[in-house]
């Protein structure tokens, strides 16, 4: 800990160090950004219609600011959700039984489905105001961010080392204190990694959520997403280019101003205690840390925060919670009862909702369409694997190549592939190709990179000793791949492929129906079905489509990915 010297002691020359100047600039920039971006929140909806979004690139900075703000608000909500939901699940065995399966299902529900179903509800929350539409958009972005963050946090909380928990109890930390000083720090590195993934993933849905159109309800919120939607509508290739450029800049700023400082800051929460690893650095964090003005401004908040940690009741007797063993069965029975009751209620609700406007034949149709989409996902993942696994291994075993390619792959994963759809559509139309086949690659355009960068990570984690042993025994060619490279990357590959497969299902809703101006292309599949029903505003059919898609995702995960993952973990995990 540092000893603070009052600023006045330092004299004039040191009153404003260059760190201070930079820090003040950063903070003013942040304030200006917040002001611009949130100005329109309380305007009536009609205002939006009077000033429709325009394709003038001059507007892009403002649009980008508003989009960014939505993503950040969604991120804040996701964190809030993570800290409460995951904590409850990890701390209470009773809650866990319900919350974790529920989270698993939520993860499988196509995110674009959430938008279609919830937009009306949110619009009703703030009738006639822009705020309602903003809620809907933010909620959609939230659903694309929150689940994996909550999962990661839950898993971290479950794996806090027993000795640390015992130490914090032995020194009688209050629950609030041990949450912030033990649980959260322990989970932090993993959580930040997931936040980055979430932020990347949510770009895809930003484009879909800003131009919301469900049946008769059409709202266009100013933002990069709606700008792209408009550009596609007007077949303005220049504007698409501008939008892509803007996104590149915004993603770069996220990286420099938000995530890099976070990663550098969270480095000290790494649990592995080996010294000597190169610590990540961030210039933004350096500025904030070295500036005395920032230090002074944050000190009252730090003190307040510290105050909440002090036990205010005399902290004498923290009794051990004793769950008598005879009651364990009873608790299981009780929670089983509650879960069954909730499940029955949910089943009855959705069944009656769906059945109201749906014939049995519709169910059959969606199941068949689901098979078509499933076939696409399977073929595409296989193709992507055949291409990217060798590439990933090649790159991963060459440290310098990995250093260059890894960030690019992560960036490509963040890049919303739907921006590129117009190009694909115009090509398909120009060459008169079959959309059933040629629209499919769009599904995996954005998600294939998860396979690539996970395989790279796996290949670079292969110990030099093992590689040397392979070289020493002159293991080469196919034998090298079969016995060394592929087993070593399998656990990583499976992780990447699971993400890619889930993402592809999600993307099918946008990818199976693509348009460029007046050209509309459609592939037969469940994604196209949901997209059409959304356009038509058939809520019963939307819900049916979403339910069937979730069902497919859950089944594929349970029947295929999970066993494969467990097998790879058990057999091939090094160390």
């Amino acid at each position, binding site marked *: *800990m540092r000893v603070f010297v009052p600023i006045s002691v330092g004299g004039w020359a040191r009153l404003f160090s260059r760190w201070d100047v930079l820090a003040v600039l950063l903070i003013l920039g942040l304030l200006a950004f917040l002001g611009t971006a949130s100005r329109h929140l309380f305007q009536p909806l009609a205002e939006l219609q009077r000033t429709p979004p325009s394709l003038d690139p001059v507007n892009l900075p403002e649009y980008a600011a508003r989009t960014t703000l939505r993503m950040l608000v969604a991120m804040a909500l996701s964190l809030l959700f993570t800290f409460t939901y995951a904590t409850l699940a990890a701390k209470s065995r009773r809650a866990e039984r319900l919350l974790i399966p529920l989270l698993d299902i939520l993860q499988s529900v196509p995110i674009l489905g959430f938008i279609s179903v919830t937009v009306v509800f949110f619009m009703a929350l703030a009738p006639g105001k822009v705020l309602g539409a903003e809620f809907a958009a933010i909620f959609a972005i939230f659903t694309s961010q929150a689940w994996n963050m909550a999962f990661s946090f839950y898993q971290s909380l479950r794996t806090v080392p027993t000795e640390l928990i015992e130490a914090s109890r*032995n*020194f009688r930390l209050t629950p609030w204190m041990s949450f912030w000083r*033990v649980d959260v720090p322990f989970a932090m590195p993993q959580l930040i990694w997931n936040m980055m993934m979430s932020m990347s993933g949510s770009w895809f849905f930003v484009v879909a959520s800003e131009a919301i159109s469900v049946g008769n309800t059409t709202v266009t919120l100013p933002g990069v997403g709606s700008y792209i939607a408009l550009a596609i509508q007007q077949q303005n290739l220049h504007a698409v280019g501008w939008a892509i450029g803007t996104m590149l800049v915004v993603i770069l700023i996220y990286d420099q101003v938000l995530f890099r400082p976070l990663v550098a800051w969270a480095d000290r929460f790494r649990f*592995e*205690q080996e*010294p000597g690893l190169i610590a990540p650095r961030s210039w933004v964090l350096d500025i904030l840390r070295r500036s005395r003005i920032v230090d002074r401004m944050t000190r009252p908040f730090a003190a307040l925060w510290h105050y909440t940690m002090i036990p205010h009741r005399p902290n004498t007797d923290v009794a051990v919670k004793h769950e008598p063993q005879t009651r364990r069965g009873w608790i299981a029975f009780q929670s089983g009862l509650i879960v069954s009751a909730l499940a029955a209620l949910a089943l009855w609700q959705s069944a009656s909702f769906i059945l109201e406007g749906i014939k049995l034949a519709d169910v059959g149709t969606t199941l068949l369409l689901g098979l078509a989409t499933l076939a696409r996902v399977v073929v595409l993942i296989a193709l992507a694997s055949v291409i990217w696994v060798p590439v990933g291994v090649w790159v991963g075993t060459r440290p310098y190549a990995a250093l260059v390619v890894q960030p690019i792959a992560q960036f490509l994963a963040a890049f919303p592939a739907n921006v590129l759809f117009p190009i694909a559509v115009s090509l398909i139309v120009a060459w008169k190709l079959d959309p059933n086949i040629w629209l499919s690659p769009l599904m995996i355009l954005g998600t294939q990179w998860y396979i690539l960068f996970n395989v790279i990570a796996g290949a670079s984690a292969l110990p030099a000793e093992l590689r040397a042993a392979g070289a020493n025994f002159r293991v080469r060619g196919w034998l090298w791949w079969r016995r060394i490279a592929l087993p070593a990357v399998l656990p990583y590959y499976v992780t990447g492929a699971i993400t890619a497969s889930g993402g592809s299902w999600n993307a099918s809703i946008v990818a199976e129906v693509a348009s460029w101006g007046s050209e509309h292309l459609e592939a037969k599949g469940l994604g196209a079905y949901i997209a059409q029903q959304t356009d038509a505003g058939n809520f019963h059919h939307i819900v049916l489509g979403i339910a069937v898609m979730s069902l497919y995702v859950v089944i594929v995960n349970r029947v295929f990915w999970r066993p494969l993952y467990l097998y790879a973990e058990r057999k091939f995990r090094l160390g």
Partner: protein
Amino acid sequence: MSTALLDIHGLRHTFPKADGGDLLVLDGIELEVAQGQIVGLLGRTGSGKSTLLRLIAGLAQPSDGSVTYLGQPVNGPAPGIAMVFQGFALFPWLTVLENVQLGLEALGLPEPEIRKRALAAIDLIGLDGYESAYPRELSGGMRQRVGFARALVVHPNILLMDEPFSALDVLTAETLRTDFLELWGDGKLPIKGVILVTHNIEEAVLMCDRILLFSNNPGRIIREIAVDLRQPRNRLDPQFRDLVEKIYVAMTARTPSAAQAGTERQITINTALPRVSANLFSGLIETLAAAPYNGKADLPVLADELHLEGDELFPVAEAMQMFHFAEVEGGDIKLTDAGKQFAELGTDDRKRLFQRQLLTYIPLAAHIRRILQERANHVAPRSRFLDELEDHMSTDDAEHTLRAVTAWGRFGEAFAYDDDSGMFSLENPT
């Protein structure tokens, strides 16, 4: 009238088993700790001594009996009882100073006092200059010093130590022990009593005023030994050696001995087996057969010679005894005829002899072999045997036991096991 610091009466503790039953880990524990004492809890891994320490710390509640601290029942982490952990349990995201301050912050003390006491503790324990270091920057010895400073800073009456030196190398551990004893002897530590859990016999004799010997499964106190030697103690002092020898004798007296026919503890299908590799077996038999031992050795001497701690040597000795390769009695280990024969054979013959002993004396191995022979296709799933074992022991013990017998079966080529399919079989890959 002086009340005891700590009073444990009629303590009994069970863990839930997989099948819903209870596994008894501690039974009939009576213990009183007076002021100014260092009490050692000495026993093998799995004797429940660490569990007892956690019950004293209030981290768990005993199934039966009472723990009383200064006349008050302990039913949660009590102020005045602080713990030093085997794996240090430092928070890697807090600096040395912050780690030490944590316990004081939880007490809600004012900031200046927290700082003053933390710095004093750091000073006392020899950590000056490391205040702003993170644990990962420190060596193991320095980390454990932080563990000590953190425990002492809250001015506990009782200091609980859970094998605090076992994760350190020999030299570092010795330095830390000496430093601790010096501070304790000079009355510089703000503590009134110490309870030390250890499996290291010499460490116990070196540090403790009283040593309580624990038996295994369930943990019971089998013997109490007072150590009257004056500090600082010398490991080479004959009296010191006598005490160590005495403890070895006491601890091996409990293990079943083939010589005591009739009173022998019966090994059954459901006996927990120690995980000892066949290599260690062979190595120890060879060492024992050769000079200077010529078939018989004093356990403490052997442990010293092989740089094994008692805790590492006992399981091997026990396993050798189960196989009737050796007899252990009165702190001595003696090769049987089978053991001497084993030492002289070549690899293939050794395997044959090992198989014979395994199938004759280890009922679980014979059981697996019999099931495999009875079945038409000569295969059986591992889970079948694991389930059987779990009815009689904890999940961990069952897992260990099955692994031990699998490794022995493989070495003796009594049966084969395929981890991918989880199947035992009679066929070895040809």
